[in-house]
């Protein structure tokens, strides 16, 4: 299972506590994980990626295994530790606002 950590506002919107655990069929990539997340929680559509082409919203970052994956290709494989569930995939609201 893929473990996903959402920022607090999106946990509230999706009515979830703690981590989200997702079954992802096929290659585990940022796109496939986010597709699975939005399929289970459709209210998150548009809040992480825009509705057009899945572009990351500007103040959202993607982290895993102490790496910033925000600028990686969406179809690039995620680290093995995310695939095995040893490490979570983090959706982060960027610190901003002074």
């Amino acid at each position, binding site marked *: 299972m893929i473990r996903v950590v959402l*920022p607090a*506002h*999106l946990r509230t*919107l999706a009515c979830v506590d703690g981590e989200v655990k997702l079954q992802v069929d096929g290659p585990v990539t940022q796109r496939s994980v986010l597709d699975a997340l939005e399929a289970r929680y459709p*209210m998150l*559509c*548009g*809040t*992480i990626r*825009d*509705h*057009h082409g899945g572009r990351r*919203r500007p*103040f*959202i970052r993607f982290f895993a295994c102490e790496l910033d994956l925000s600028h990686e290709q969406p179809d690039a494989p995620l680290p093995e530790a995310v695939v095995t569930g040893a490490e979570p995939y983090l959706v982060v*609201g*960027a610190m*901003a606002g002074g």
Partner: protein
Amino acid sequence: MSRVRVLVGTRKGAFVLNADGKRDRWDVSGPFFPGWEIYHIKGSPTDPDRLFASQSSGWFGQVIQRSDDGGATWEPVGNKFDYATEPGTHQWYDGTPHPWEFARVWHLEPAPGDPDTVYAGVEDAGLFKSTDGGQSWTELSGLRTHKSGPDWAPGAGGMCLHTIILDPAHPDRIFAAISAAGAFRSDDAGQTWQPVNRGLRSQGIPDEDAEVGHCVHRLAMHPARPEVLYMQKHWDVMRSDDAGGSWHEVSGNLPTDFGFPIDVHAHEPDTVYVVPITSDSHHFPPEGKLRVYRSRTGGDDWEPLTRGLPQEHCYVNVLRDAMAVDSLDECGVYFGTTGGQVYASADAGDSWAPVVRDLPAVLSVEVQTLS
């Protein structure tokens, strides 16, 4: 006994204020959607327990929430606002072409007669309609694609469609206002539009009486006299007696004619309310005194309403969607401030009292009169 429900949108969540018909004791609930900007909440005139809220965030974008129990519980509905045709460009602040981009929903206008039909005014300026309770949205693109569209430019707050008025006497007639393009009217249910800005004069644009380019802050109409419209423009309070065909100034003796909201008494079509603000560079009331001004003559002759409002050291603003009237026999008037106060008057503005004092900055106030 009748009661009222006041729906307050703020920079950091929504609040619902309930009172009986006396309007002197209030139950305050919220924050709903804490931490999110709530630009607007409004109830269906057909089913007052159905509410729509625009929830947005610089981080997470736009969410639309719907309640079917008067605001006790909410569920997210559709948030996909796709422009129906190639978006094209409008003018940017520096005069260069800028692609039309959806930013947020400023105003939600539930339609009379059908609780599933609701309109949304968005930034960058466009008008959307849902006929399935907000699950899906379709743009009425005739407005955005008006031939003047490439010349529209944003106001300081963005290029927002902030006012939607559905004419009760002419079901196919819709008014919309855009900062800073002006007022528009459709007579065919939103398919085609015409600018209705004749008579407006705006310093600060190259052609003072241009067909478009005016920073209209708010429009108001009394449902019993829908051919009469009132407008708070950036500067100037204006009136039209022919459904926007032409406008004349009714600022009269106001201490300043800059401001944002304007509203009309529920039972007296000639009684109008504004909140004068010093200027566009000083977004606070003149002399530090928060005064609502009321005209009982359809404009020109205005009286200050001060009882219960702070008359010293007050430097808040009242935003365009932050005033509303109820329809009880003694008309109630409500407004919210950027300082987080919501003031209510149960006597048509003669006296005021704060319902709450310390909310986040208030973006919008609506009121429902319930039986």
